[in-house]
């Protein structure tokens, strides 16, 4: 049978598409996943409905008190120290009052008040903009309220970084491993080309431990379930004045800051 070049190319093209497409379809249908009976959380895991924090800056008397918190987090999570603001990766750090709460600029407030440091981190928002925009669900909201990162799925598009109104996310502009001071062998590192941020110490919560920053804060950070009205955190928020960062943007942050009521305020 005679066939001209056009027909040949058309048949070849369609066969290729069908062949590749059906292979892909069959492969993805084959993925069985684990049966529900074979997997379960650790019995020591703390069940949460909504992860939340209240930070009481008055409990941090010196710079070392705060540094302990950042060190605790960054060391156990293999957060690299890139050493320059262009490439830096940070999960928890501090900013001055004016940078933390920019809508509260106040030209007549005391200089001391404006210079006060505030611990900032991902707010694990209840309506997170970053989750809304991620095209692969590499960042997603877990049942316990943690805004999580799936490093395996992230394509490094950085849409989430553009969306986060709090500047909480960092990107690995280069291979982070040479910049990790001391590796924690029980936790993975990340690789270049993925976004990372605080992941709520999910691996500690899973075995019944508090987040590392909370432990290192010596009472400066209250941690708990915002959906449990009897929790210490809810009682604190319900009885004292608290601020959240940029609440007007509608992302519903879960990190609160205590204000006032102390001679240091």
């Amino acid at each position, binding site marked *: 049978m005679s066939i001209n070049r056009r027909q040949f190319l058309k048949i070849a093209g369609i066969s290729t598409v069908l062949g590749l497409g059906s292979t892909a379809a069959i492969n993805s249908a084959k993925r069985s996943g684990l049966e529900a009976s074979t997997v379960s959380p*650790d019995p020591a895991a703390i069940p949460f409905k909504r992860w939340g924090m209240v930070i009481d800056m008055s409990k941090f008397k010196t710079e070392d008190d705060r540094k302990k918190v950042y060190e605790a987090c960054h060391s156990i999570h293999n957060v690299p120290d890139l050493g320059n603001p262009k490439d830096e990766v940070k999960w928890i750090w501090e900013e001055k009052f004016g940078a933390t709460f920019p809508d509260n600029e106040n030209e007549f407030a005391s200089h001391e008040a404006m210079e006060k440091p505030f611990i900032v981190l991902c707010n694990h928002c209840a309506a997170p903009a970053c989750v809304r925009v991620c095209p692969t669900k590499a960042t997603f909201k877990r049942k316990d309220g943690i805004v999580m990162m799936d490093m395996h799925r992230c394509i490094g598009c950085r849409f989430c970084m553009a969306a986060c109104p709090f500047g909480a996310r960092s990107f690995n502009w280069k291979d982070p491993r040479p910049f990790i001071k001391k590796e924690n*062998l029980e936790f993975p*590192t990340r690789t270049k080309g993925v976004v990372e941020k605080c992941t709520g110490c999910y691996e500690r919560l899973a075995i019944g431990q508090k987040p590392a920053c909370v432990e290192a804060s010596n009472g400066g950070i209250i941690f708990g379930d915002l959906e449990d009205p009897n929790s210490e955190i809810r009682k604190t928020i319900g009885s004292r004045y608290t601020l959240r960062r940029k609440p007007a943007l509608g992302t519903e942050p879960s990190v609160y800051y205590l204000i006032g009521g102390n001679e240091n305020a």
Partner: protein
Amino acid sequence: MYNGGKIIIGLAIFMAFVTFPFYNNFGKANAKPEPKTDTPAIKEVQAQLGKKEVCIEPKAAMKGEHMQMLNDWRDSVVRDGNRIYVASDGRKHNMSLQNTCMKCHSNKKEFCDKCHNYMAVVPYCWDCHIAPKENKS
């Protein structure tokens, strides 16, 4: 054939390139990979359970499907918040490459790499998951 000379020469060069991997390896003996499972951690479990095959699932299943299992574990841990895996023989394990699999198979070069190198497979797991630091023992 129009331009017959050029076409035949082109075909010859193409065949030379395409068959290179084959004739380049003539005569080189390539032994079957023998991954070693004699780490102290494995020996301990073998003594405990009194049998030789002590991996999470039977050897054949692990050999063929360990990548599938790791992917399933990944989704279960990262996305669903699970931690414990109940194997087909009833034993419970923590779903973790670094802290479970590699605790027994701490000899990555003599175990994982043996087959992977043979098959020219380069899994990028190790870009993030810290491979066990092997001692000289």
